[in-house]
């Protein structure tokens, strides 16, 4: 079943077209990674999928329905979005932040219901956040903060999560912990995931499909084996790379090469 489909999407900000004629499908329960150089339109693609950008040509279909015909509230019950570098301006506690994600389900004026509290509690225990509940977001480390923000997305009980560079400021331990947790939800509740990942090797290890953007167009899309090939990457990123299989997973692993070593290398793939 196709959960998300882009049909001839040309999108951008304030009249400047960033994406040109994008077509792709995301199957339910799959993890799709969006990769590409800086400024290639990755965030624009995510924001178009999340109905944050609403002026574009073509159509975005969620479960076959045009998202422009679905209300914000209805979308929020099915799709959650984690922006990149989200700055929270006020000292909300973790508990308050998680409850906010029940907003699309709650009454406009009445308080949250017992069900809302129960769903928050179950995510809290699954993600081991109970120690943090009464702390404010300002008191958390970067790793904890990112975990809370993912939990907030999951409290929305979504069919699709859209994440914009969720591991950007995390160390290697927190990067893997974050993506492992995401993967667990993908496997357990057939959550569909669309994420921009800057790190090609993380994308390779975790994603079922990759979508490589170049100057606002799709260069290639497919499994990591199909996308992460040196001839494609060198063309798109304008640098020399080597690609070897990961010793354990067998997935492609991309090595960059500093200038001073280039003359010593012989090409291998």
């Amino acid at each position, binding site marked *: 079943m196709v959960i998300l489909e882009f049909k001839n999407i040309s999108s951008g900000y304030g009249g400047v077209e960033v994406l040109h004629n994008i077509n792709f499908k995301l199957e339910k329960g799959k993890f799709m990674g969006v990769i590409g150089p800086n400024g290639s339109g990755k965030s624009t693609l995510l924001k178009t999928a*999340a109905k944050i950008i609403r002026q574009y040509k073509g159509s975005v279909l969620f479960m076959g329905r045009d998202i422009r015909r679905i209300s*914000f509230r209805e979308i929020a019950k099915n799709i959650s979005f984690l922006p990149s570098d989200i700055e*929270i301006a006020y000292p*909300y506690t973790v508990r308050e932040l998680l409850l906010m994600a029940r907003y699309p389900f709650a009454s406009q004026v009445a308080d949250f219901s017992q069900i809302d509290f129960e769903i928050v509690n179950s995510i809290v225990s699954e993600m081991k956040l109970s120690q943090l509940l009464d702390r404010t977001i300002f008191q958390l480390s970067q790793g904890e903060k990112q975990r809370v923000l993912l939990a907030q997305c999951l409290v*929305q009980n979504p069919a699709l999560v859209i994440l914009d560079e969720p591991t950007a400021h995390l160390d290697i331990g927190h990067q893997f912990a974050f993506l492992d947790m995401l993967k667990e939800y993908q496997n357990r509740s057939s959550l569909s995931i669309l994420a921009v990942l800057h790190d090609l090797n993380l994308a390779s290890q975790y994603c079922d499909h990759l979508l490589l953007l170049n100057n606002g167009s799709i260069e290639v899309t497919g499994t990591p084996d199909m996308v992460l090939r040196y001839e494609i990457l060198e063309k798109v990123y304008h640098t020399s790379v080597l690609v070897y299989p990961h010793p354990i997973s067998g997935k492609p692993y991309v090595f960059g090469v500093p200038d001073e070593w280039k003359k010593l290398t012989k090409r291998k793939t």
Partner: protein
Amino acid sequence: MKKTSFLLIFVLLVVSIIFGLSSGTEFFSPLKILRIFISPDQYQFEKTILFQLRIPRIWCGFLVGSGLSVSGLILQAILKNPLAESYTLGISGGASLGIATGIISGHMASIPVFAFAGSLISIFVLLSIGTSRKLSSGTLLLLGIMLNFIFSSFSLLVITLLQKERFMEAVVWFMGNITSYNSNILRSAPFFLLPGYFVTWLFWKDLNIFSLGEEKAATLGVDPEKKKYLWLALAGLITGYCVSLAGLVGFVGLVIPHAVRIIVGADHKKAIPSSIFVGGSFLVIADTLARTIIQPIEIPVGIISGFFGGLFFVLILLKTTRKQKW
């Protein structure tokens, strides 16, 4: 809400009212105030001071302080900017321009309508420049402060040109002053302000969601465009009434929400009612100081609130730039 913070706010309210009732050229002890309330006919002179002067003035101060705090809270959430408030965004200035227009055209009775229109115009100017130029929240604030100067200078100029004899009165009023409030406006104010507070509190979840930023708000189910303008209009209405009553009282809308977040936290369910009471009490205390600190002269309350508020603004600025929160 924690019991201690509730108690703190309640004590502040009681203290501010007693302070306001007892202080003045004639000092009344709390016991005497009680006696005047019980048998007013025995205290003709004191009764007049209490019921004709001090109580309306406390009520006016309370409404203005709470209104500025609530509108500050709304603006800070909607624009996701902790330094936003009607004064720093130029909305108060816009309201003053509306009021100046009202005074000149002689429509004294509908001053609040002019103030509301003026604040809407300044919101419109601020947002249209802000969004077309994609200004950062810091630059937007700078623009707002400049708009405030432009609007209030212009309205002061207009008043002075057309009614020279009212120049001093206008200057004092522009500094923020509760001495010369219009009692007709004070009578109608609760009918607009109190429902405004109630609506704000009823939709506390909206403000929580908006304060995460427009992108996140949209993906949590808020229609960002439609609701944003409704909220800004509500903040404009409240600001318009406050400016009609007391002129340009600065920084209350900034300081009080910050203080409240320290006491009860950021959740708007608690922050809205707390801001109403803390903001009201703060301005009652500031106004009582303003009319008693250099007797027999009454200084504009804006001097007191501006002094403490400005000081607080600088402290927040130092703290936030260090943490790079905006």
